[in-house]
C-alpha cells in the first residue's frame, strides 16, 4: 500500500511537472532509456545537465557584466549551448526562455537580455528544485516501471 501510494505520488508529481509545462517529452525518453544496465539513468543525466548548465549560467552572468558594450554574439553562443543542455532533459519552460534571450541578443537588446536572463534563472531554479524533490520521492518509492508513453 505504502509503496503503491508512494508510486502514485511520484507519478502525480511527474504529471504535474508536465502539466505545468516544465518538462516535455524528452524526459519520458530518458525514462524509457533507463533500464537494468542504467537504473539511475535519468538522474545521472539530470545531474550532468546541472553541472553543465550551472557552468553556462555563470559564464553568461559574467558576460552580462562585461557591458559597454555587451557581446551579444558571445551571449548568443553561450545561450545556444545552454539551450542544448536544457533540451537534453526536456526543460521546456527553460528552453522557451532561452529562445527569448537569444532573440534579444540578436536584436541587440541589452535590457531585454538582462530581464530574460533573470527570468531564465528563476525558471531554471524552480525546475531544479522540483526535480530534486521528484527524484527524492522516486527513490523512496523504490524502483518503478519505466514510463509508458501513449504513442
Amino acid at each position, binding site marked *: 500500500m505504502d509503496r503503491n501510494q508512494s508510486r502514485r505520488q511520484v507519478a502525480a508529481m511527474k504529471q504535474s511537472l508536465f502539466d505545468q509545462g516544465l518538462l516535455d517529452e524528452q524526459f519520458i525518453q530518458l525514462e524509457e532509456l533507463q533500464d537494468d544496465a542504467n537504473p539511475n539513468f535519468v538522474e545521472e543525466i539530470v545531474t*550532468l545537465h546541472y553541472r553543465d548548465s550551472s557552468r553556462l549560467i555563470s559564464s553568461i552572468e559574467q558576460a552580462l557584466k562585461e557591458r559597454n558594450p555587451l557581446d551579444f554574439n558571445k551571449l548568443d553562443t553561450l545561450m545556444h549551448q545552454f539551450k542544448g543542455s536544457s533540451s537534453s532533459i526536456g526543460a521546456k519552460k527553460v528552453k522557451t526562455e532561452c529562445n527569448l534571450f537569444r532573440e534579444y541578443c540578436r536584436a541587440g537588446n541589452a535590457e531585454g537580455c538582462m530581464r530574460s536572463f533573470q527570468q531564465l534563472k528563476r525558471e531554471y531554479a524552480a525546475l531544479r528544485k522540483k526535480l530534486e524533490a521528484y527524484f527524492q520521492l522516486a527513490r523512496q518509492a523504490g524502483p518503478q516501471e519505466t514510463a509508458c508513453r501513449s504513442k
Partner: protein
Amino acid sequence: MDNGCFSSPKRDFPAGLRVLVVDDDPTWLKILEKMLKKCNYEVTTCCLARHALSLLRERKDGYDIVISDVNMPDMDGFKLLEHVGLEMDLPVIMMSVDGETSKVMKGVQHGACDYLLKPIRMKELRNIWQHVFRKKIHEAKEFESFESIHLMRNGSELSDDGNLFAVEDVTSSKKRKDADSKHDDKECLDPSSTKKARVVWSVDLHQKFVKAVNQIGFDKVGPKKILDLMNVPWLTRENVASHLQKYRLYLSRIQKENDQRSSSSGMKHSDFPSKDMGSFGFQNSVIKQQNDVAIDNYNHSDGSLQLQNVETKSHEADPKGIVSQSTIAKKGRILTGNIADTNMRESLRVGLNQTFPPLESEGNHAVFDCSMPTPYSWTEVPHMQLKEEHKSLVYLEDSFNQLPLHGKQQQHIHVDQSQSVASISSAPSITEEEAAACIEPKPLFADYNNDYASSVSSTGNAVATFPIQPGSLIMNGQSSERISTTTSGLKTQEYNNLSSISDQEIYQRNLLGCEAASASLDEDLHFYWLEGECYNNMNFGLQNIGMSEYYDPGLISEAPIHLYDSADYSVMDQGLFIA
C-alpha cells in the same frame, strides 16, 4: 574491426553498426550513447571534433557512420562534416538544437545525409542505418550497371561518339568507376558484379592519355580521339571517357583551388561571381547543379527515388525533405573534393577513371565559389588550405603523396598524383607543416599560363569548360552529348528544385545548344556524382577543404558564366601534363 560492410542482412545488420558520436555537450553525448546502444549499435563517443577526426583516421574502416553536433567549440561541425566526407567518405548526420532552415541547408550543402533536431528521439536514431545501407547499395548498383553497360558497350564499340549510347557508356563507366572505387574501398556488395573490367590507370597509361589530350587539343578532345591516339588495344572508349571526365574535374578542381588560394582564405562567394570567366562559370554552376542532382540521385537507390529526392525541397519539418537534402549534401560534400585517405588510395587503385569526375563536381562547386581567374598553382591552394585546415590538408597531401611515393598504387595514376608528384618533388613527404610542396607547381603554372593563353584564348570556352565540367563539353561532340544529357537532367530535376539555377540552366542550354536527352539523365547525374565522388577521393583534396563551404545555392544564381579563365585552365592542364 572487420570490414564493416553490410552487404547483406546476414550479418544481423543493422545491429553492430559502428557509430561515432561527436558532441561537446556531455549530457547529450551520454544520452545518445545510451540511445544508440539500445539500438544495438556499437557506439564511440567523442566530445572534441579533432579527436573524432583522429579516431576516424586511425581506423579508416572503423566506423560506419558519424553523428555530429553542429556547434562545437574546437571545430565547426560542418567542417568536420567535410573532412569526414572527404577523407573517409562516411555518412554523416548533423544535429543541433537549432533548426533554422539556413543551418539545415548548410548541412545538406556540406554533405550531411541527415540533420536531426535536438531533442533527438530514439526512433530517429533507430533508422540511421539506412544511410549506411543506402551507400552500399549504391555502390553495388553502380557496379552492376556498369557490368551490363560494359557488355552493351562492347557491342556498340563502333558507335558514334555523339550518340546516346555513348553517353550511356560514359555514365555507366562512371558508375563503374565509382563502384569500383567504392568496392575497393569498402569491399562490400555483390562480388559477382565487381572486379570486372576495371581499368587501372597506371602512370604510363595516364601519361599517354595526357599526351593524347594535349596533342588533340583541349577543345577538340574526345574519348574516341584520345583512344585512337593512345593506341592501347585493351583500353575502351568508355574507359577513356570516364578518365577524361575525371581529368577535367581534376583540372577544374585545381583551378578552383588556385583561385581559392589566391583569394586568401578561399571561399569567398563574392570572388566567384566577380570573376569573368565567360561561359565557364555558368557551366560550372550548372554542373554543380547537376552534381547536386546527381548526388541526390546517387544517394538514393535509384531512378524514381532519386527524382523524388531531387525535387524535394528541404524543409525542416519535412523529414523526407531533409533526408533528401542531406543526401544531396552528402554527395555535395564528397564532391567538394574531400580527400579521402584510404579512399583515395582505393580509388586510385581502382582506376583513374574515378578520379576525374569528382573533380568535375568539385570543380563546379569550387569554381562557383572561388575566383578562378588567377592561375594559381594548385599547390598554392593547398598551402592556403593548410593554414586553414592544417590537419586535413596535410592529410590529403600526405595520402596523396603516399601514392606516388610509396609506390603502392603506382598504377593508380591519377592526374592528381602526377601533379602532386611534380609539385611535391621538392618535398616528397608532405608533412603537416609542409607547405613547400605546394610551391612547386606554381612556377609551372605561371609558365603554362603564358604559353597557353594564346592558344587557349581562341578556344575560349572549350578549354575552359573542359576541365570544369566534363559534362558540359562544349568542346567536343562527345562531351556535349553528355552535357546535354546532364543539362536536360539538370533541367528537369535540379531545375525544379533550385529556382535560382534556372537562369543558368537556361543559359547553359542555350550555350550548349544540346538537346536534352533525358533518357540517361539520371544516369548522367548519377554519373557525375559518382565521378565526383571518386575523384574527390582521389583528388589531392587540396581544394576540398574549403570547397563545400563555398557552396552556396545563392551563388549559383549569381555565378557568372565565367568560372574559369581559359588561360588559367590551360595552365592547369599544362601543369598536369608536365607531371
